[in-house]
């Protein structure tokens, strides 16, 4: 996808460009409420928490009977939950897969039971595309590209960059790295000198940044790209402790746009964050209701990535809900 830039207005993802005609059947068609089984990855971050809240609130608002399951970041738990959804006889199953592979057998069972599947946030890799109806979520590669593009602009296409990657093997980590590298490859002046996993956490982000700063390349670092805001915030601590000014001596760009990132931007310590909105609830249930109503949906519904900078941070902070 190639989402256009939009003006900052908080939870407006429902009117994203993709969902086609049938995105607003707001009254439930049957007297009996729709039963939806949703298998969430876990509650590993504020982003995820906002995502969960959005889905729950929206379900409540629309009077949908939601069976919610939390997989604690484990695929096996999620698989069990999906099978139990079949046993419970829900009308629609939605889930955010922990990893991309490994869903084929269970999706086949779900299909055999005649239950439509909607994916959110992360995709699955299956040989048979008919196993799910649609996938609603951001494009991680695009996010990486946006971050790269912003950094290229901010630094005039040059810089000594260090990268804090996400959890090894996870789809966002792989794709955000890929998108960013694409852009960097187009700017001979930009160089990624260090790249390590900070496992998406503040503490690891801080620790790894400390080592970056103490390596021989340390003094020459001018920019940091972090796969999520938490790692960037951890790294800010490390930069400050090393006697350099985060956001000034070292430009920092990260992804997610959680509230803490806006606080950091307002304080001038973070330069830019790319939004990957977690508020997927309205979009998700639009899609689900459409499926129940028998309408066809596009295979891919992209939630747009949006770039936030320091300039508007203080104002944005007031309107952030997560």
């Amino acid at each position: 996808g190639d989402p256009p830039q939009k003006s900052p207005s908080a939870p407006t993802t429902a009117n994203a460009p993709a969902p086609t005609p049938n995105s607003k059947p707001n009254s439930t068609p049957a007297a009996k409420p729709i039963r939806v089984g949703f298998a969430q990855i876990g509650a590993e971050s504020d982003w995820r928490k906002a995502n969960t809240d959005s889905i729950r609130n929206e379900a409540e608002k629309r009077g949908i009977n939601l069976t919610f399951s939390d997989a604690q970041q484990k695929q096996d738990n999620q698989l069990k939950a999906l099978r139990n959804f079949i046993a419970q006889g829900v009308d629609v199953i939605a889930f955010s897969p922990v990893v991309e592979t490994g869903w084929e057998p269970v999706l086949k069972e779900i299909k055999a039971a005649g239950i439509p599947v909607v994916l959110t946030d992360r995709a699955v890799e299956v040989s048979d595309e008919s196993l799910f109806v649609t996938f609603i979520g951001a494009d991680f590669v695009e996010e990486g590209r946006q971050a790269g593009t912003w950094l290229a602009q901010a630094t005039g296409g040059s810089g000594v960059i260090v990268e804090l990657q996400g959890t090894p093997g996870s789809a966002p980590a792989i794709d955000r790295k890929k998108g960013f590298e694409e852009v960097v490859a187009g700017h001979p002046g930009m160089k990624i000198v260090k790249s390590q996993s900070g496992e998406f956490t503040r503490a690891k982000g801080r620790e790894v940044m400390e080592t970056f700063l103490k390596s021989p390349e340390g003094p020459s670092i001018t920019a940091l790209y972090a796969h999520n805001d938490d790692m960037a915030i951890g790294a800010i601590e490390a930069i400050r402790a090393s006697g350099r000014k985060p956001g000034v001596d070292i430009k920092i760009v990260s992804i997610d746009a959680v509230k803490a990132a806006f606080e950091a931007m307002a304080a001038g310590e973070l330069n830019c964050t790319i939004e990957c909105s977690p508020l997927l609830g309205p979009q998700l249930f639009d899609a689900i209701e459409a499926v129940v109503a028998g309408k066809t949906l596009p295979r891919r519904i992209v939630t747009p990535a949006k770039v936030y900078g320091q300039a508007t941070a203080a104002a944005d902070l007031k309107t952030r809900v997560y």
Partner: protein
Amino acid sequence: MIRERQSPPERRSLPHRPRLVPRLDPSVVPSAATALVLVAAFLLGAARYENFASWMVLRNLLVDNAYLGIAAVGATFVILAGGIDLSVGAVMAMTSVLVARLVEHAGVHPAVAIAVAILAGMSFGLAQGSLIQLFGLPAFLVTLAGMFLARGAAFALHPQSLGVRHPFVAQLLNDSLSLHIPLGPRGVVIPITVVVAGAVIAITWWTLRQTPFGRAVHAIGDDEHAATLMGVPVGRVRVMTYAIAGGLSALAGVAFTLYQQAGDPTACKGLELDAIAAVVIGGTLLRGGVGGVIGTLMGVLILGLIQTIITFEGDLSSWWTRIVVGVLVLAFVALQRGVDAIASRRLTSAA
């Protein structure tokens, strides 16, 4: 390893007179307690949730826990022999990636790949067992290191998850090799992984109860020094238990690969603790020497049932899910303890 002593054995009157009432075999008490708890939990679920008491739920319980079952059987061997194996989950991940890699990238036939993976797992277990036996290193430590190594190896083999698309794998799972049981509206299909897990449990039961090797496993777990003095080849038996556990972890990894038709280096994190919990809930003492595989089977089912109950509960937040899992595990262990204690008091007073 981690030692937990029980209260001293029940002292019973020595003079042996023939009994009118046949005595309950003390070794079955813990398993019986677990079974009781298991049935009670299921009935509770059935009373509380609609659609709970269905063949589908029972089948899911088996399908979703087959690989954990196989891994837990391996853990049973090791724990009975007085050791512990923390490498289970990592070895599963390693073998699942190995199979995927061999099949998808090297074009090896899945059957061969599976054989290679199981051999790899056994060798891994063998290496761990040898370190433990030859140099007297604590099992906890060696297998913890093993866990790190195997996890590293899994990532080195392939850094992301990798789907297995070979038709043979699909065929392994398709109807021809599965059990069809005409129950419920659509019939129940039991995939091959469950059948394999069942066979593993049956064979293990036989091995542990009916063969000299199995008795030696119990003996070295109970009192290693005595077993040595009694001429049991302690070293060989111990190393064997780790090799078997490695092999079974690998088999579990294969089952996992079939289960989701993919190899994933991040898979099964922390599964070793589930396996150990299953073994312990099943009444096997971590100290070794006492317990058996039937208990483990029930322990696995109890853990699975907890998951099912949580899904059926339907609206637990992440934290309540964790808290409920913790509380339920505690409740099961405590209940089992209680039933066990009451039963053995019965036994003593009957004596």
